[in-house]
């Protein structure tokens, strides 16, 4: 088990190296560079543009720029932002924390809503099942930014006293911060909870048709014991896997939802950086996001083996 985790973690390095190459080359292969983007509409003489490029090392061959950047990165330095000339890491971390918080709250919310509705659906069948699946089918088709827009609309019309754009930093007011995260997290969680719900339902139904559950019923175990000890425990594997796999899409969605609720996360930072061709910032964000996705995949595999004794990777 420990060997497996180490191997999987070691595999992340070549993949991240690939990601860094893609991010690096992609940004530089595009029309327009930072010098032009920062000049905007003002006409700068080619000499002036070249001075900006030389200062930032953009006049060097791409492979040389990449190796310089990589060498710094290995020392934990993501480089300086082209616009503010401050270390990217220092600017990124507080924003990353906000995005991570939103993603995490949304993930927990989705898991709670999805697992409970899926469980109810499989447990009571009949009308409950029909209702849950109908609602699921509809919610799956409502994109998170549409949910967010509708929430903003309804809140604005009927509850103007609820300030939905009042983002509060966690350190100044932890409770207020959680409160301001609830609606954005809900809009993110809705569609994801459907996927979790459907998978929970399928997993519980599959387990409940197996022989050992019939034996448990025949023995006269209490239904609640069967539900929690037999069904839920065995259905946990798919629930964990699905939630883990959805985390990547939650992370992408956070960026979108942040812009609607004006939450100061990575979203706006990324937009400004991409359109301004602020290469070090884009590279850092892409690398961090990719690392999170890969780490989550490893965690899912570990959780998988932990919960289900039948899974062995050796």
């Amino acid at each position: 088990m420990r060997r497996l985790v180490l191997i999987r973690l070691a595999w992340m390095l070549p993949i991240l190296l690939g990601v860094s190459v893609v991010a690096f080359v992609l940004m530089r292969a595009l029309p327009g560079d930072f010098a032009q983007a920062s000049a905007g509409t003002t006409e700068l003489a080619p000499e002036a543009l070249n001075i900006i490029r030389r200062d930032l090392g953009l006049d060097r061959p791409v492979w040389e720029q990449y190796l310089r950047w990589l060498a710094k990165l290995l020392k934990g330095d993501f480089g300086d932002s082209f616009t503010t000339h401050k270390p990217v890491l220092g600017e990124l971390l507080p924003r990353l924390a906000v995005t991570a918080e939103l993603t995490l709250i949304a993930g927990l919310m989705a898991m709670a809503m999805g697992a409970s509705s899926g469980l109810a659906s499989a447990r009571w069948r009949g009308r409950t099942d029909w209702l849950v699946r109908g609602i699921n089918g509809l919610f799956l088709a409502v994109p998170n930014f549409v949910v967010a827009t509708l929430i903003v609309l309804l809140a604005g019309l009927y509850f103007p006293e609820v300030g939905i754009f009042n983002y509060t930093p966690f350190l100044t007011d932890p409770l207020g911060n959680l409160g301001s995260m609830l609606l954005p997290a809900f809009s993110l969680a809705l569609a994801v909870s459907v996927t979790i719900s459907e998978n929970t339902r399928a997993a519980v139904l599959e387990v409940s048709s197996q022989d050992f559950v019939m034996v448990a019923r025949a023995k006269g175990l209490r239904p609640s014991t069967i539900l929690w000890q037999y069904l839920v425990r065995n259905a946990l594997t798919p629930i964990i896997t699905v939630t883990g796999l959805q985390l990547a899409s939650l992370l992408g969605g956070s960026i979108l939802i942040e812009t609607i609720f004006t939450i100061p996360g990575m979203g706006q930072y990324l937009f400004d950086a991409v359109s301004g061709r602020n290469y070090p910032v884009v590279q850092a964000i892409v690398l961090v996001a990719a690392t999170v996705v890969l780490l989550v995949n490893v965690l899912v595999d570990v959780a998988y083996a932990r919960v289900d004794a039948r899974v062995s990777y050796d």
Partner: protein
Amino acid sequence: MTERQRLGGGNAMMSIGLLMLASLVAITLFGTLIAPYNPSETSADSLAGPTAAHWLGTDSIGRDLLSRLIVGGRTTLLITFVAVTLAVCCGLVLGLFCGYVGGLADQVVMRILDVVFAFPVFLLAIAVVAALGPSVPNLILTIAIVYTPRLARVVRGPVLSVKRWDHVEAARSVGVSEFNIATRHVLPLIVSPVLVETSLTLAQTIFTITALSFLGLGPPPPDPNWGAMLSEARQFMELAPLTVIGPAAAIVFATLTFIVLANGLRERLDVASR
């Protein structure tokens, strides 16, 4: 199996999905003809609510919202259909090649795809489209780049097992060329999962396209599209809250179409859900 069943009858989900799809295709093909007004034509009547002349009302500079919704749907759906077709074709070629040829080539391509999978889809889409610049061809290219790896993986899995079946061995023993085996004896057997995945990809693409447009990374104005319309409606929400409903409902309808279709196809073709 009766003729009726073979044509997809007897599966309510599939029929409803096809009906919804037909209406989307009709909007895509005939959008500009159906629209009651010119979608870019302005009038003095701005931010008016629904009236007999303007069923969905007008926007901030007096353009007819119903016309913009129909013509905007045409843009959104056209990008979706073309982009997904492109992604499916590339995914089929790549997946078939990797799965069938196998060996080192397969390993190399799959490791490269691992790199692409490490990006969250939406983040990748933002980066690519913001970098290339928002335009219809660039959006199509972006969607194709983002979804090709996923489709390739869906194709590759079944190919790995089908290529070991007896009929493939039989074909090889009578001297059928490898290319013909791959395209005529393997490909037809993996169509079902690919069809289901295509439908799901269409639903996701509607999301990605409208979300990008919502952020201002869609087709450039003044041509309407659903994502941008929702974003415009959001700005004038306090003055004309009803203008949000049209684009929101359209996006949900289109997404629902492909999800219903995917479920119908899955049931019809008996593809195990993932």
